């Protein structure tokens, strides 16, 4: 059904009056319904980055090891042995709220395609998840669906899910965040790009058939939710991981030949964005005949074909003499293979359907004249740094520790990880929870990758610049803590409505902080994704610039985890001042989210990290854990729970109240376990790195400096209680 194109339809499709006028000017006439559909999705926030582009340009994207930065389907970095790591993180927030299982599953499917479309075999998945208040009954249903969806898709395609993070906060009640990251490996000289070339070359469609699913998903991802959002359910796509697995194998098989000129997955805005981007990047034209597109439903219109977001589909430009080679491979894998068009020199996209030209749009203005906004920004006002001496401790160390390690944000995530296949592939050296970063070895080599996702949204709300900086620094720190050399990041910027100056101010400040950290740590951004309008009825999420970090280890055997072995000295690296502002102790024990978040000193960060890494690689450090949420004592408890070995802690810092010392969240710190603290501390002093001995490992109890003693077993029981009770307890049966 075609509708009249006018101002009213423009509004419905998410284009404002000025944008609509621009379409009319480019076309020199009123566009057809199909043409207007193409404009509306290409110019949606999701595809055009119209609010964020001016800011994203500030991020450092270059380093000697960067092969392709932002602009391709995923970022590409050289990792040695002639190999490249190809990786990206992408959000599927809105679909996951409407239909958690399929939303999360297709999020995993989409990011996998972004990576293997560049020639990489995917070797690891991670995911950064934020959910609403656990006491909200809907949160449990969403967590259950999202976890099942991630597992359902990732387990089936046979890519191990090795890491990620989960936070809870009421600000995500109406807008959970599902950010999925995939990492793949390819030879550096076999990277595939999307720029189309070659007059007359065939344009080939492969994968699943096209149905009406997901039409206008990209515009949905660019709008706020309201009370009627549940009715948007029909536009959610359904994932088929089995077909995706076949698509991975078939594409990799074809990529081993010389048949492919260009390739791109059909993600958001499906055939529209893939064909427009491929032709646009190549500076050529493209002609499509929709009669040849494999269809799952009958009677589909040109508009529906162009905007469908059916999953598990790819678009390729082939060398004309290699069609048969390609067809044979896709036949072998029982996947659809259809020539649906060819490359032209017109600089236009021309779409034919049933003997008519349904769309004919000049590509250059469609791409170059896409709206670009420098929206007004309002800076978040700075919060006061809290004086720890003025914050009373009514609970003591033992009680606070037990509360913290049991709270939703710090409790064991094993219930979640146990539903993800983390070992398929046989290369997972450090599984979820075993180390600060996941470590995945490269098949047949000693080399390994370290992978992590990080962000502390409560810091970002209190001070977006410090929070953005901290997110990058923490990713760098987590890679360092396993012994890896951090190489690059992918970012997933999740924010509220960019038309509000305070939200745009958060975005701009977060970018500023991230850029500074990337610069100081030689840790460039090579890919990313922006998700805006994460608001429901005017209430926005916490600003959440999720960072996916990648590092490399020359030898997987050098990787260390957090597991605490007996009879080692426990030392904290980095200075402790007892920063309680925005700490979990303050929130969970003190009952308030208050104060400035801990600042990151990037020079200190780098010095501390470089020192720790060198001591891991020399074999001196046997276990290492960065100090993050919950501070020193939570970090040590986590190390003890991982191994079952306890510790006796004896440090008595002067000048800092005990609760601030043990639970403060000062940045740039690591807990390390070493055989001999004296020689370790001497080396640190020589390098100008502050350290302090905290105690010694051994036994089955954690003995605190105030004399309190907790068995590691009972800590574990507290730590593991929340998810099981919440999800599998008697109250949790309302799901199937």
């Amino acid at each position: 059904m075609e509708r009249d194109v006018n101002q009213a339809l423009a509004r419905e499709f998410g284009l404002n009056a000025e944008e609509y006028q621009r379409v009319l000017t480019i076309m020199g006439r009123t566009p057809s319904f199909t043409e207007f559909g193409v404009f509306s999705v290409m110019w949606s926030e999701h595809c055009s980055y119209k609010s964020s582009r001016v800011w994203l340009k500030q991020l450092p994207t270059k380093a000697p090891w960067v092969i392709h930065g932002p602009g391709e389907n995923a970022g590409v970095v050289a990792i040695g042995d002639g190999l490249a790591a190809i990786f990206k993180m992408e959000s599927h927030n809105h679909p996951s709220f409407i239909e958690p299982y399929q939303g999360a599953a297709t999020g995993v499917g989409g990011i996998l395609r972004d990576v293997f479309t560049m020639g990489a075999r995917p070797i690891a998945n991670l995911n950064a998840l934020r959910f609403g208040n656990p006491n909200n009954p809907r949160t449990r249903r969403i967590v259950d669906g999202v976890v099942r969806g991630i597992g359902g898709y990732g387990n089936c395609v046979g890519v191990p899910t090795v890491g990620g993070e989960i936070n809870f906060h009421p600000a995500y009640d109406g807008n959970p965040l599902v950010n999925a990251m995939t990492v793949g490996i390819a030879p550096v000289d076999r990277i595939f790009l999307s720029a189309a070339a070659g007059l007359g070359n065939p344009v080939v469609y492969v994968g699943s058939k096209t149905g009406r699913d997901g039409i206008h998903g990209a515009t949905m991802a660019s709008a706020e939710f309201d009370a009627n959002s549940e009715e948007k359910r029909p536009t959610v796509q359904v994932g088929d991981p089995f077909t995706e697995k076949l698509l991975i194998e078939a594409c990799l098989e074809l990529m081993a030949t010389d048949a492919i000129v260009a390739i791109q997955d059909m993600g958001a805005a499906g055939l529209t964005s893939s064909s427009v981007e491929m032709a646009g990047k190549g500076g050529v034209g493209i002609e499509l005949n929709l009669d040849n597109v494999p269809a799952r439903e009958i009677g589909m219109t040109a508009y529906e074909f162009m905007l469908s977001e059916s999953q598990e589909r790819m678009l390729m430009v082939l060398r004309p003499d290699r069609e048969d080679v390609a067809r044979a491979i896709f036949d072998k894998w029982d996947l659809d293979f259809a020539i649906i068009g060819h490359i032209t020199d017109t600089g236009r996209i021309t779409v034919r359907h049933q003997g008519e030209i349904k769309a004919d749009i000049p590509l250059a203005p469609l791409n170059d004249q896409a709206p670009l906004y420098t929206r007004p920004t309002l800076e978040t006002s700075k919060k006061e740094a809290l004086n720890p001496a003025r914050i009373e401790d009514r609970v003591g160390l033992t009680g606070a520790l037990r509360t913290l390690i049991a709270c939703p944000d710090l409790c064991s995530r094993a219930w979640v990880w146990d539903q993800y296949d983390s070992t398929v592939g046989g290369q997972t050296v450090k599984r979820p929870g075993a180390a600060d970063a996941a470590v995945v070895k490269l098949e047949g080599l000693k080399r390994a990758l370290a992978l992590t996702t990080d962000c502390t949204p409560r810091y970002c709300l209190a001070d977006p610049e410090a929070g953005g900086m901290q997110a990058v620094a923490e990713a760098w720190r987590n890679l360092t803590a396993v012994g890896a050399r951090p190489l690059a990041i992918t970012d997933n910027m999740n924010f509220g409505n960019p038309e509000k100056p305070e939200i745009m101010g958060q975005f701009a400040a977060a970018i500023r902080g991230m850029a500074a950290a990337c610069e100081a740590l030689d840790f460039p951004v090579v890919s990313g994704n922006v998700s805006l309008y994460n608001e429901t009825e005017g209430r926005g999420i916490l600003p959440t610039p999720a960072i996916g970090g990648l590092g490399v280890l020359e030898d997987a055997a050098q990787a260390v985890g957090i597991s605490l072995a007996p009879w080692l000295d426990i030392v904290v690296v980095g200075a402790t001042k007892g920063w309680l502002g925005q700490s979990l102790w303050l929130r969970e024990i003190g009952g308030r989210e208050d104060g400035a978040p801990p600042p990151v000193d990037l020079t200190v960060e780098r010095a501390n990290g470089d020192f720790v890494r060198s001591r891991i690689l020399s074999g001196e450090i046997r276990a290492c854990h960065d100090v993050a949420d919950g501070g020193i004592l939570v970090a040590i408890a986590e190390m003890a729970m991982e191994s079952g070995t306890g510790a006796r802690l004896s440090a008595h810092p002067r000048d800092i109240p005990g609760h601030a010392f043990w639970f403060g969240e000062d940045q740039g710190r690591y807990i390390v376990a070493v055989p001999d603290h004296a020689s370790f501390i001497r080396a640190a002093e020589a390098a100008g790195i502050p350290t302090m001995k905290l105690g010694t490992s051994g036994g089955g109890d954690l003995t605190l400096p105030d004399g309190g003693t907790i068995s590691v077993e009972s800590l574990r029981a507290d730590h593991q209680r929340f998810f099981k009770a919440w999800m599998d307890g008697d109250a949790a049966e309302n799901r199937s």
Partner: protein
Amino acid sequence: MKATVTVMLKNGVLDPQGKAIAHALGTLGFDNVNDVRAGKVIELDLNETDAGKAKAQAEDMARKLLANGVIESFRVVVE
């Protein structure tokens, strides 16, 4: 003709999905549910006009693939 094959777990085979559904219904206040069994329905569009033959074909398909006789029973309805 259309043949509908209903595949159910045999009596005596534990059906955790059915149990979970029963429990969920209970928590929603449906307290008169004695038992729930979950199975699957497979609809076949057959190129066949004779109902008897269609049924025989569908039953053959059920025996050979659609149901696993170790754990499942099936029922065919042709219309």
